[in-house]
C-alpha cells in the first residue's frame, strides 16, 4: 500500500482523512454478496479489504454425508453460472476413480451442454460488465435475451433452468429430446446474432476503451504467482486452457483456438470472453456433427455406486478458470473428503493487488472483470 502524507503542507491542523466505503454485501455493483471495504482518498482507492463468507453453505462438507449421485446437485450450486461444467468435473472424477467409461453419446451431450453453459456464463459476464461500466442495463438485457434461448434449451433437455442435476457417473440422466439437433442449431444461430449486438455495444466503444484499456495490467509472472486461471490468465498472453493443456473428456477431438490477450488488462479480459463464446460455438457445431446414437448410460451401473478406495484431483476448464474437485474415497457410497477448487476464489485473491491505486469506479470494473461467482468463492 502506498503511503501518502495526508497533511497539507503549511496547514498542520488541516488533516485529510481516508474514508472507508463498504461496497457490498448489498450494493448494486457487487456480484453476489461479495463485500469489499475500500479505503478511499478522495476518489483514489488506497486499500481494499475483501470480505467473503456471506454465502458459505458448507458445499464441501455437506457432500460427505451424501451419496455420490446426490453430490451432483451440490456441484450445481457451487458455480451456479456454469452448472454443467461443475457437474462435468465431478462426474469425470468419479468415473476415473471407479473406472466407468461413459458412453460416446453421453460424452458428446456433456461437451455440448458444457460449452453452451460456458456461453451462458460469459453472456452473464458481458451483461454484468456492461452495467459495471455504466451502460444503463442494455448489455444486461441483450445478454439475458440470448441467455434465455440457451436456458430454454437446457430446460427442454433437463427440465430445470438453473440447477440441472443432469450428468451422472457413466452418462447422463436421460436422453436428449428428439429435436435436439434442430433446437441446438437454432440456439447457436441466436447466439451468433446476439453476440453481434453485444460486440456493437462494447467492442471499440470509445468510452469502454478509455475506461478499460490499460486498467489493472497483470503480467504473466504475476498471474501465475497469484494462481489466476481462465480468461484472467489468458488475457496476460499465456495460452493455457485445460481443454488443450490437459484434455479431459473428448475435448481432444475438437478443433478450436484459445484466444489470448496481450496487455492483461480489463479490455483484454472482455475480448477474450467474447472470443471464447465463438470458440464454444465452434466446438458445439463440431460435437453436433459428430454426435453418435446409442445408449446414454454405461452398462453395468449398480444401484448403489460404491467408489473404490483412492483419491483423485480432477480439474476442468470452467468459464471462470480451473474448476477442480478433490475426492478421497474409502470404498463406501459417500466421499470421505470432498474439496472444491473454485476458480473465482483464486482469481479474487488478486483483487487487492489489482485495485490499489485505481479509482473507485475502476475498482468496480476490475471486480467485474474477475467475474466472480460468490457461491464458488465461499462454497
Amino acid at each position, binding site marked *: 500500500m502506498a503511503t*501518502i502524507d495526508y497533511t497539507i503542507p503549511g496547514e498542520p491542523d488541516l488533516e485529510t482523512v481516508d*474514508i*472507508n*466505503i*463498504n461496497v457490498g454485501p448489498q*450494493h*448494486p*455493483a457487487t456480484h453476489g454478496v461479495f463485500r469489499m471495504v475500500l479505503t*478511499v*482518498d*478522495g*476518489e*483514489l482507492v488506497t486499500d481494499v479489504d475483501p470480505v467473503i463468507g456471506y454465502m458459505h453453505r458448507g458445499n464441501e462438507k455437506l457432500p460427505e454425508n451424501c451419496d455420490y449421485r446426490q453430490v451432483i446437485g451440490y456441484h450445481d450450486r457451487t458455480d451456479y453460472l456454469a452448472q454443467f461444467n461443475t457437474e462435468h468435473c465431478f462426474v469425470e472424477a468419479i468415473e476415473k476413480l471407479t473406472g466407468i467409461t461413459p458412453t460416446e453419446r453421453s460424452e458428446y451431450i456433456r461437451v455440448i451442454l458444457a460449452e453452451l453453459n460456458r456461453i451462458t456464463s460469459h453472456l452473464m459476464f458481458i451483461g454484468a460488465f*456492461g*452495467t*459495471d*461500466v*455504466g*451502460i*444503463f*442495463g*442494455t448489455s444486461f*438485457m*441483450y445478454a439475458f*435475451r440470448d441467455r434465455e434461448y440457451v436456458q430454454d434449451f437446457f430446460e427442454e433437455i433437463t427440465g430445470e433452468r438453473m440447477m440441472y442435476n443432469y450428468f451422472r457417473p457413466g452418462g447422463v440422466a436421460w436422453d436428449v429430446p428428439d429435436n435436439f439437433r434442430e433446437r441446438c442449431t437454432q440456439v447457436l444461430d441466436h447466439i451468433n446474432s446476439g453476440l453481434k449486438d453485444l460486440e456493437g*455495444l462494447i467492442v471499440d*466503444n*470509445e*468510452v*469502454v*476503451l*478509455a*475506461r478499460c*484499456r*490499460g*486498467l489493472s495490467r497483470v503480467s504473466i509472472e504475476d498471474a501465475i504467482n497469484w494462481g489466476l486461471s481462465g480468461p484472467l490468465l489468458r488475457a496476460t498472453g499465456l495460452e493455457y486452457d485445460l481443454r488443450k493443456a490437459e484434455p479431459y473428456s473428448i475435448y481432444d477431438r475438437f478443433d478450436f483456438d484459445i484466444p489470448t490477450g496481450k496487455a492483461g488488462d480489463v479490455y483484454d479480459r472482455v475480448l477474450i470472453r467474447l472470443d471464447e463464446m465463438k470458440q464454444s460455438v465452434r466446438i458445439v457445431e463440431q460435437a453436433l456433427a459428430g454426435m453418435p446414437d446409442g445408449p446414454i448410460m454405461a452398462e453395468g451401473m449398480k444401484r448403489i455406486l460404491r467408489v473404490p478406495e483412492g483419491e483423485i484431483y480432477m480439474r476442468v476448464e470452467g468459464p471462470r478458470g480451473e474448476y477442480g474437485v478433490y475426492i478421497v474415497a474409502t470404498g463406501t457410497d459417500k466421499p470421505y473428503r470432498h474439496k472444491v477448487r473454485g476458480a473465482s476464489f483464486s482469481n479474487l485473491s488478486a483483487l487487492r493487488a489489482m485495485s490499489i*491505486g*485505481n*479509482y*473507485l*469506479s*475502476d475498482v*468496480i470494473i476490475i471486480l467485474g472483470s474477475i467475474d466472480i461467482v460468490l457461491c464458488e468463492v465461499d462454497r
Partner: protein
Amino acid sequence: MRSIGSYETVTFLLAENVWLDALLRMGIVALLVPVGVILLTWVERKVIGRLQQRLGPMHVGPFGLLQGLADTIKLMTKEDVRPDSADRPTFELAVFVIVVPVFMAAVAVPFTSDIFVRNMTLGLFYFLAVSSLGIVGFVMAGWGSDNKYALLGGVRAGAQLISYEIPLILSAVAVAMLGQSLNLYTLVNLQDNTPFIAYQPLAFIIFVIAGLAELYRQPFDIPVAETEVVGGPSVEYSGIRWSMFQMGEFVSLVLISALASLIFLGGWIWPFSADNATWLQVSLMVVKTSAFILFFMWMRVSVPRLRIDQLMALCWQILLPFAFLQIIINGLVLVYDWPNWTLTILSGTAAIAMGTLIYHIARRSGVLYQTSGAAQRVGSVL
C-alpha cells in the same frame, strides 16, 4: 410605479396587473411541469425498454400510460425516511434547493412566440445562472445525508456540474455573439433563414455534450452512478423527497433540450417563416425538443460511464479550449465582417478536429488517461 426591470415586452396573459400576471404564469408553469414530468417518466421507460428489446411499462392504463401517475401516488404515500444522523435542515432543504432553480429557469424559456412566462433581455444568461444554483442542492444533499455514498456523489456532482457550466455558458455565449443579444426571443427571430447550428456546429456539439453533463445522464452520470455510489446524493431520500430529485432531473432535461432547440435549431421559426401559426410553432418546438430528449435517452442506454478524471480532462482539456476557439472564430468573423459561410467552414473544421482528437485520445487511452501519474494527481487533489 417604479420599473422592475428592462423587459422588452410586457404582455398580459389575463390580469392587467404585473404581479397577478406573473403569479398566474408561474402557476401555469408549476402546474404543467409536474404533469409533463409524469408523462416523461413514462416516455423514458418506454423508450429505454424498446431500445433494450423490452416492452417497458404495460400494466397501468393503455400501454402503461398511467404508470407515471401510479408511481407518483406510490411515491407520495410512501414513508418519508430520514436517517437519524442526517443533518436535518440541510437534508430537508436540499431537495427544494434542487427543484426551485429548475422552476426558476423555466421562467426564462419562451416555448413559442406567445407561450412564455417572461421575456427577458438577459434570458439566456439568466437561464444558465439560475440553473447553476441547483448544484448547491446536490452538495447539500450529499453532505446532509451523512452517508458516504451520498458524500462522494455530492462531491462528484459539485465538481462535474461546476466544471461543465463553463463550456455550456461559453457555447451559449458564442451564439449570443452571433445574435448580438442575450434575449432568447431575439435569438430565435434571427434564425428564420438559417438556424445557428449551421454557423456554429462546434458550439452546438459542445453545448450538447456539456448539457448532457449538466443533466448528469450517461455517459456523464458519475454523480449518481448506480454501480459506484448507489444513486449518489439521493441515496438516503425516499418517497416524495426522492421524487423531487426525479422531477428536477426531468424538468432540466426538458429545459436544456428546449434551450438547445431554441438557440441552435431555430426554435419555433425555422424552417418556416417568422409568423407561423401557433399550432405550427408548438409542433415545431415539440418536435425539436423531443428530438433532443429522445437523443439523450438513446445515449443513456448506449454509452457507458466515464471516469471522473476523464470527465474533467474532457471538460478542461478539450471542450473548454474548443469553446474558446469558437468564440475567437466568431470574434474574427464579426470584427472583420467576413461572410457567414466562413463561420460554417471554420467552426465545422474545428468540430471535426475536436471529434478526431477525442477519438484518438480514447484509442490511445493509456496516454492521457493513465491510471498512475497525471490521473492520480487529479485524484489526490480532489
